[in-house]
């Protein structure tokens, strides 16, 4: 384990941003989001959760896929460059780090999504272990250790000192570039990190959702859950807004649209939400006619369809953003509890 030798985080940030574009949690308009670091930005490393997850950096809410220009009978196709400068994202929590694995299974499976793949290849993920989990957190339910995130590099902050450990080849190489700012941590310091991690885990065990049970969500019981009468009660208050899906680190549905700019066509994709009445609407109409079916789709996907296709990996990471943000306080934890009671 290494440690950062200064107590000024800005020293580290300016060193990183001298090499690559650096994203950190910054406060913008009163809310915390991953933004490009600069001296003048208000860095908020104390914030447990950004409103939108770090997913946004790899799978942005809207991105241009290609353009078309028509001249007479010719159509010119403009494809964006398949090149990207490396970038670093600092301060990713364990839940968001795990969400990349969920997204990778979707976007990096054949046929590979080149837009996502390019960003994944170019991005270096530096995680920050949690120190102050809150009541909406339940990552432990999905086997995630909030104190041992899965990134290229993992950092822990104990008494104002930043400890650092590279976990991948990419992380090792990047750590080497920052060697002048890093020193070997002593055995006592490593023990202090371990002690803090144990304390954080003890806190997590006391949180209200720590004991959610998800073992019952197995493929063989899919139809049983699908036909559960509980959905009618659970969906009742749902407003059909997209808050839960847009703050979710693992939601990966998107829509592709053409925009007529007046001098050409821009084909872009943007996040879509299964909660919306227009979701997957086809020429034949809308496959999920009422909010009940749309609501059920979201949770069936997270708890059953996705794991059935991905060796049992749930596509919820227990970050609790939907718990905090849902306007009517309905969320996946309540769904797990209600369905699990059967």
């Amino acid at each position, binding site marked *: 384990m290494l440690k950062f030798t200064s107590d000024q985080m800005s020293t580290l940030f300016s060193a990183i941003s001298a090499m690559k574009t650096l994203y950190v949690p910054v406060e913008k308009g009163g809310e915390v989001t991953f933004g490009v670091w600069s001296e003048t930005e208000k860095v908020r490393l104390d914030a447990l959760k950004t409103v939108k997850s770090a997913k946004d950096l790899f799978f942005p809410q809207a991105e241009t896929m290609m353009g078309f220009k028509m001249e007479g009978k010719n159509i010119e196709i403009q494809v964006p460059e398949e090149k990207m400068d490396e970038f670093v994202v600092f301060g990713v929590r364990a839940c968001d780090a795990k969400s990349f694995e969920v997204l990778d299974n979707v976007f990096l499976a054949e046929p590979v999504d080149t837009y996502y793949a390019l960003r994944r290849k170019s991005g270096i993920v530096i995680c920050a272990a949690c120190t102050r989990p809150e009541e909406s957190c339940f990552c432990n339910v999905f086997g995630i250790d909030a104190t041992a995130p899965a990134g290229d590099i993992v950092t822990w902050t104990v008494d104002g000192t930043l400890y650092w450990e590279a976990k991948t080849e990419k992380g090792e190489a990047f750590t080497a570039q920052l060697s002048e700012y890093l020193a070997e941590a002593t055995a006592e310091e490593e023990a202090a990190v371990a002690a803090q991690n144990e304390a954080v885990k003890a806190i997590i065990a006391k949180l209200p959702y720590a004991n959610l049970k998800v073992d019952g969500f197995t493929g063989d019981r899919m139809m049983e859950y699908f036909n559960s009468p509980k959905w009618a009660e659970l969906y009742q208050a749902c407003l059909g807004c997209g808050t839960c899906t847009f703050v979710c680190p693992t939601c990966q549905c998107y829509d592709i649209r053409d925009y007529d*700019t*007046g001098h050409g066509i821009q084909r872009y994709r943007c996040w879509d939400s299964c909660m919306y009445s227009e979701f997957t609407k086809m020429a034949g109409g809308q496959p999920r006619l009422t909010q009940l079916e749309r609501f059920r789709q979201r949770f069936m996907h997270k708890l059953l369809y996705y794991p059935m296709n991905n060796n049992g990996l749930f596509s919820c990471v227990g970050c609790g953003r939907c718990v905090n943000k849902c306007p009517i306080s309905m969320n996946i934890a309540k769904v797990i509890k209600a369905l699990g009671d059967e």
Partner: protein
Amino acid sequence: MQVNESSKEFKPCIVAFCCNWCSYAGADLAGSNRLSYPADVKIIRVPCSCRVNPLFILRAFQRGADGVILCGCHPGDCHYTTGNYYARRRMTMLFSMLDYLGIEKERTRVEWVSAAEGAKFAATMNDFISTVQSLGENRKLRDLRCKE
């Protein structure tokens, strides 16, 4: 190398929504009387000033307008009796909101121009164009995708 001064001059794109019964006829009269106003004004004929939905104004800006003007019959003279009274309230509210969002209020205007007021139509357009010209290009309420 000599730079042609006039080619550097900013030529604003103006969209004018004109009601069919008064202002469009007013524009026609301005034309037949050979009164000049710049060709940068794109006239869109609408059945009545109250046909103009606030979205029309916003979309004109999105598509590259630097100024948008709505012309209708004088209050009291509406072909449909009361349409322009509604338009008056709606546009007052929309312009107030644009101003509140910090978008230059001088880029929007409402003028009442009757079918007999060809001269007023030309004068109004000339005045509006020079106002927008002094503001420069619309930057605050534009869609970058629509810029060539």
